[in-house]
């Protein structure tokens, strides 16, 4: 009985959380007329209240066709997003992972201060550091290039933090044993640290992907050239005549994120669990 109640409560919550996805899917299959009817009050200055139906009355794939075949700019932006995201994740792998390992396993002067600094930076929203970033990037002549978005994200502190937790959980004895066996630090890092901390790394990557796939503020601030815009900036204005395509675009944008999540679901769970556990 208790389980049932809890289950039903959870289902309701889940439904509430998933509802936007259904909204999106239904809308992407609705024709223009139906969309105007439902959304006219909000988007086209019509009267009355917005209405919605879960299942479209006249489903059509027209918006998908329009999006996938008639809008080359969508793909341009899609690949920009991919480039950015992959770049950032790669960068984070290169810089963030060793940093996390360093924080986890070694002692060095100012470690605590540095770590505190990391945490403080992690908490700061983008808007706070926006101006200083702008100045630095402008000084480095990186404005209006993808590096303007990639580089600051590469050195983000959040993945370091997540991976740090995981690297902390690697048994000390194992490392000692490796040391005794004559492994160098690099070997230890590569052969022990990375495999052992892979859940953390992957979870950081997944979370990172989810974050950087939806990045809006940095591209908008640092990228003036429309050719470099990511997918999140595809339809900043949702007007009535583009409502259907907006829904379709949103669905398509959603798919890779969903797939990546499915790929790294396990690791995410582990990561969250690990974060909660204290060694």
């Amino acid at each position, binding site marked *: 009985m208790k389980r049932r109640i809890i289950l039903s409560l959870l289902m309701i919550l889940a439904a509430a959380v998933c509802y936007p996805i259904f909204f999106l899917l239904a809308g992407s299959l609705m024709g223009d007329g139906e969309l105007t009817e439902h959304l006219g009050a909000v988007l086209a200055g019509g009267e009355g209240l917005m209405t919605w139906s879960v299942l479209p009355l006249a489903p059509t794939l027209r918006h998908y066709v329009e999006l996938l075949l*008639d809008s080359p700019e969508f793909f341009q932006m899609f690949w920009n997003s991919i480039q950015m995201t992959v770049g950032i994740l790669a960068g984070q792998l290169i810089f963030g992972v060793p940093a996390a390992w360093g924080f986890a396993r070694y002692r060095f002067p100012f470690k605590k201060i540095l770590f505190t600094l990391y945490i403080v930076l992690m908490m700061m929203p983008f808007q706070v550091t926006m101006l200083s970033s702008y100045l630095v990037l402008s000084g480095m002549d990186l404005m209006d290039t993808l590096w303007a978005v990639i580089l600051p994200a590469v050195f983000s502190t959040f993945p370091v933090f997540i991976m740090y937790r995981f690297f902390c959980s690697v048994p000390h004895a194992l490392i000692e044993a490796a040391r005794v066996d004559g492994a160098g630090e690099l070997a230890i890092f590569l052969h022990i640290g990375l495999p052992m901390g892979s859940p953390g790394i992957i979870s950081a990557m997944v979370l990172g992907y989810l974050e950087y796939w939806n990045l809006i503020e940095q591209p908008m601030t640092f990228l003036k*050239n429309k050719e470099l815009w990511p997918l999140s900036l595809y339809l900043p204005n949702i007007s009535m005549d583009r409502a259907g395509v907006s829904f379709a675009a949103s669905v398509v944008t959603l798919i890779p994120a969903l797939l990546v999540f*499915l790929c790294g679901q*396990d690791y995410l769970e582990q990561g969250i669990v690990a974060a909660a556990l204290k060694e």
Partner: protein
Amino acid sequence: MAGKWIKNEGKQNTSAAIQKKALRALAGFLALMVLFTLLSRAASNQIVPNVVVETPGKESLSYRISASGTVKENQLCAVNVASGIRVKKVLVNAGDRVEKGDLLLELDPEDLAEKIRMKEREIQKMELGIQDYEAGQERKQSDQELERRRAGEDYQRVERSADTQVERAEKAMQEAKSRLEDFDRSAESGDFGEAEDPVEKTLQDTCREKAELLQQAETEWKEKQEELQKAEAAASQTADSASEAGSGPQTPASSGQTGSSLEQLPKAVKEAEERKEAAGREKEEADAALAQYQAERESREGQADASQRQALEDAYTQAKNAYEDAVRQREDSLTDAERKKEDAAKQTLPDSTVKSQTLDLQILQIELERMRELESSQGRIVSPVKGVVRKVNAEPGFATSDGSTVSLADLSEGCRFVAALSAEDAKYLAKGDEVILIPTAGNEEIKGLTVDSMKESPEDPEQMEITVEIRDGEMEIGESATLSLEKKSPRYPCTLPLAALHLDGNQSYVLILQEEKTVLGTELTAARVDVEILEKNQQLAVLKEGALTGSQQVIVSSDKPIEAGSRVRPNKE
């Protein structure tokens, strides 16, 4: 425990399976995206219209005008033959080319001879007619002279008799007037002129007597009064003096007189007064009787006077009227006579009958001459000039008609090309412009000709008639050809092909290439620019400066319909 382990493992397996599937799905998705990228790019490139662009040029407009027309003769020559003569043979038809001296038609000589005879007769009749007329004119002249003279005499006669009548009437009037005046005058003067009336006389005498008696009585009365006064005065004096003197001797006379006067005088005075009054009354009566008698008499006489006066007055009035009538009549008759005189003196209008008849005669004579000429040439009509027969107005067996018998296009005068051009096209043409004629027959072009004249076509006011002089021999009359002209205007700074212009209501616009930064990079789109057209011909349009710069590329044509904002791809030539 093992079951849980298996469950865990199963769970692990499921999650691994999901992971694998998800990874595969991700890979598949990415591959799909790559595919769609290519497809959408291909599709959009298909849709993008290819356009041909041009920068605005600095060209001059050339106007090519062409009009078709025919060659017409410059001069038509008419061959006139005396009308009414029968034609024997017609040797040419419309369109035939004849040389000078070629036979055109033959007239019937017998008919000609007859016509000549008729004409001669006509002439004779006319001459006689003129003679008669002239004689008639002379006669008329002398008749007129006679009339004039008679009118003069009449006038004088009338004058005389009228004057006499007037005099007589005047005299009568004067007499009547004088009689009336006399009468008036005698009426005013009264007795002098009139017969004395005995009764009146008696009465008058009586009056006079009475008046005299009255006078006497009055005098007497006055005397008596004086006496009384004197006596009274004397009496009073005596009294006074007596009183003063006491006793004094009274003048015996005075006292005696006084005493007697005083008693007698008032009585005498009174008597005198009574006598005076009576005399007065008698006089009055006499006067009244006289007056009455006079009044009666006057009224009697007055009536007779009045009627007499009236009669005289009437007579006078009559005489006056008669006089006035006579005067008026005199005037009338004089006027009449004068008018008659004037009428008679009027000059007759100049009569040109003789002249016109003479002229007619001359014409007839001329006609006769011509007929005689025809006779001498045996009725053969030859062409006076080299030309092409346009029209033949004669038929064998029928008489020649009025008007030209044969009309020829006079080749010696040359020919001209006439074409009709719409008023709009004719704007670009001016007198003296060089044109080219292209004969329809396929001959060579004729260059070097100029526009001779341009005027409104009589048939159609919307069109203009263009004439071009043709030199000898270049073209035949009746040939059709096309006139072609090319005119260049001065250079304009901004010209575009007509195809580049579009119309939106009343506003013309062009589409220019514009670079736009989009997600796909720098794209070229069509942008609308409103322009004003100054001039245009069949190919180019001249735009007002300022709308376009020299570097802007204008879209001239595209393989798909485009509008402002659509993406385009210029053809790279």
